[in-house]
Structures are given as C-alpha cells and as structure tokens.
C-alpha cells in the first residue's frame, strides 16, 4: 500500500472512531495516531460501534475471542496496521 493510500485509510479510521464514540472524543484528540483510544473516551459501546464500522467499511471481521492481545485496537496507527494486514495489503 502506498503512502497516500495509507494516509487516506488513517483518515477514514479516525472518522470511524469519531463516529463510533458518538462525538465523545474530540477530533483534535485523534490527530496523533499513537494515543491510546481508551484513555480519551472510547468505551465498550464505542468499541462495539467501531468493530461494526471496520467490518462494514473495510470488510474486516474481527473476532476478539480469537485474538489474545487486543492492543491492535488501542491506537489509530495499530488499527491501520491491523486492517492493512487483514486485507493482505503490503504496508
């Protein structure tokens, strides 16, 4: 995946997180891809909405029970890396 495509994907995921959180997270707080989303207000309901959004937008079905380590969902950058890997795209 080229750099432009990755930047575009990051923006889409930032938007998905914002929508999933119902506006409880301010868009400016999502600027850094390394911020732990749990510390800025993404709660369990927000994560549920985010997983729905990732599946519908990117066709990535995430089964949390199959993944021992959930840190791939903790930051925007981690989510981007996970989605890229799941879609079989070269980073």
């Amino acid at each position: 995946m080229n750099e432009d495509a990755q930047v575009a994907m990051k923006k889409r995921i930032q938007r998905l997180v914002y929508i999933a959180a119902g506006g409880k997270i301010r868009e400016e707080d999502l600027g850094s891809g390394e911020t732990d989303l749990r510390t800025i207000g993404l709660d369990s309901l927000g994560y549920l909405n985010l997983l729905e959004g990732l599946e519908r937008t990117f066709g990535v079905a995430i089964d949390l029970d199959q993944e021992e380590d959930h840190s791939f969902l903790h930051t925007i950058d981690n989510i981007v890396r996970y989605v890229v890997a799941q879609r079989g795209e070269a980073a």
Partner: protein
Amino acid sequence: MSEARALWEAMAGCVDRHRGRVAVVGSAEALSYEELGRRIREASGLLRAAPHVGFCLGNRPEYVILYFATLAAGHLPLLLDASFNTGEIEAIRDDCGLDALVLERAKAEALDLPGKVEPLPFDDNVVILPLARRGEPSYEARPTTEVCRFTSGTTGRPKCLEFSGHAVVSAARNWVLGTGMTGDDRTLCLAALSNGLAFNTSLLSTFLAGGELHFLKGAPLTRPVARRIAESGITRLIAFPTLYRNLTAPGGPDPSLLAGLRHAISAGAPLWPDVREEFRTLYGLDVSDYYGIAETGPVTFERDASHHAGLGQPLPGAEIRIAPGPGDEPGAGEVLVRTASMASGYLNHPGLFEARVDAEGFYHSGDRGRIVDGRLHLVGRTQDHINVAGRKIDPTEIVAVVSALAGVTDAVAFPDEDLNREALVHLVVVAASGELTRAAVAEACRSRLASYKVPGRISFVQEIPRTGVGKPRLAMLREQLNAKGSAA
C-alpha cells in the same frame, strides 16, 4: 447461608422434567438438561467453602452452571456487574460478605484482590477466586433471601437488592405465562445476566418452559448475531437498543437471517422510535415493549404485535396504579407497582426500599406515566439517577470523586446524549486554576469508578448556575454549554 431453597427446587424440577432436551448452548457445546444437572452437582462441590459467591462474569454457560451450583449448595449468589472494579467489590465484601468470586481469568488478574484462583474443571477461562473476609459483614441477609442483585449506589458502594426464591420463581413463571414462552423457544440472551431483564426473561424462565438458552461468544456484532439466529433457529432475542440500531443501519446483515425470530426484546434503555419502525420495515417484526424495575421485576409486556403505542399491559402477577401529583397532566401521575416478584429490600441500605413501598405494598417507582387502552405510557421520571445502557448511575457519586481533586470548586453531573443518541453522563467542572485537564478528570474517574460510570463528556465552565438553595439550574447550564459548543 440461605435457608430457603425455592429457586433450586424449581430448577431441579426443570432438570428432571426436561432431561433429554437441550438446555444451554454456548459457542463450543450444547448441554442437555441432564448434562447441565450433572455439571451443577459437580460444580457445587467446588463452592462448598463459600457461603456467599459473587458473580462478576459475562454471559456464558459456566455462569448458568455456577449460579445454580451455588443455589444447589444452599449458598447465596450475588450477581455483580461484570465491570465492577476492585473498590466496588471490596465494598460489597465489607457490606454483604463475599467468600468467593466467579470471574474470567483475565478479570481476576486485572483486579487488585489477593488470593489464588482455582480453575474450573470444565472451562479454563473461568476461575473461582476465594476471598478472605475482613471481619463480619456489616449487614446480614434475610433468611428468605436466595439471590442478590445490585443497583448503583453512592460513593462506590453498589446497593444490594435481596430477592426471595419465591419472588424470582414468580417473575420467571409470570414471564413464561405472560409472553407465551414454550419449550420450542430458543432464546439468545445478549443482555448481561446481572441485568434485571436478562435475569428475569432468560435465566430461569427458559428452563421452566423447557426451552434453550443460547449465548454468543465475543462482541455482539450484527453479522455473528444474525448468523447465530439463523443457524441455531433462535426464536427470542434479548438485546439492547444499540444492537437493534446497528441491525437497522445501512450495510447490515441479510434480513432473511432473522426470519425465524418471533420475539425481539429490547432491554436496558428506551428504544428509539425510528429504530423500532425501521426494524419492523426491514425484518417484519416488532421489538417488544417491556417495562421492568430492578426492585419489582418485570411489570409489563405488549402481547399484541399490532399495537405500537405504550409499554404494554401488566404481566400476570403485576398491578399498576397511577398516583396523580401536583403538576401532573390529567390522567398522569407517578407509576406505582405491585408484583409477585418484588425485592425484599436493600441488604446494605436498611429501610430505603421499605420507604418507597406504601401500606398496600405498591412500590413508588419515581417514573411518571398514564394508562391508555390498558397500556402503560411513561411521560417522565422524577428520580435523579442517570440511566446509561440500563445501568442506573447516581450523579452524586461522580461529583464526589471529582470534587476531591485539587482545584475543583464546583461540579455537577447530569444525563446527556452523544451524537449516536446514546445516553451518557455529562460532567461539568469549575476549576480554580486552568491547569486541570479533561484527561486528568477522566483518569480520576476511571481510577475510582466502574467504567460505565466514567463521564462520556466533560466540560469546564466558569460557574455553574444554581438556585437560591444551591440546586443546579440544568436547563440554563445546557443552554450555556450549547452556546459555547456552537461558538467553538
């Protein structure tokens, strides 16, 4: 130890009566009533040294096994919210007595509670954590109490509701009777079993009817839920408004997957009318109306699928009275409820429940409503608690946490909505210096409160408008915040 055994006797009867039928279905296996009975007996031995067993666990077959194993041992199950933190669990231990906790291994590791966990022989992910008591509990359960559930309390002390076995069995029987549940019903329960609706509509009622109780492993996303409904022939879905909204959002699952569903029941919070309408259009099924109160159990249910107004008619064993008060419109008033499934009282708040029950045994709900065509219609609430996803939160608890922070001179918490129309707690803070950040306030709340009580929105203002007696003027505050938001 509980002296009454009505609940276990009812369940033991179910195990005998429906021996060959399927009782519980998880993601890995299906248990017949006979196998369920065998595992309950096996597990009851594990809990011999624990008169009070706390359940701090998500929905799974092991919840059912250990819950009934506790009852079979003649012990008292206390159904905690799975998100309770160390402080809340310790408060329950001190108030009510807790000798062991049933929880997932990861949760046991995350809590700051000493003790060596014991794995279950039939599931390595669920463990029993023995707890040492710190002296005698402050309160002793009534001899008739067979199960305890919790509502939000103040200052990190959840309020413990006591229920007799007869009350729980009555709630389950009346739900079976009032909703026409049969042995052919397969219930997929996605609402937490510690929640009153799931507890009363799924846990015992399914087994009294000889039906199947299904659990979904993993997050309740629409596609796995729809697949499970289709593959397992689910007839009843017990879920929460967010799932129904997601099922109706664009790009949702194929509606034909839900074709076998006969009842869709929404729990926890009011369902948005447009979601109800959209669900009906997409899936050809009404999301059932229902009204229940933690202290009284289920109250109403709409039996007539073509009737779309109100919250349904009283269930068998439930009576409603409307008590008009000053300021109520004609026909409206406080909703008073008397059921066969009332709680006995609050274990750790003696007199609190009793003060809300009148001489004729009617519980004063704090909700305001009216009866139209035999159906209950709610028109408002008089209570001060905030309902977030079916969990009642006392705003004073949050204000107490934030008020203890250096530099905070005033604070108020009140119900608000996010952009997805989900209820949230809005905390407004007045800080003496400009150094206090949202992140610091959120972190203070996260470290002291269960996750669902952490405010979804935090705002800073110069001053909170208050009345002469110090009550916050919320309407004025909301206006100020809205003006500030649109100016930003």
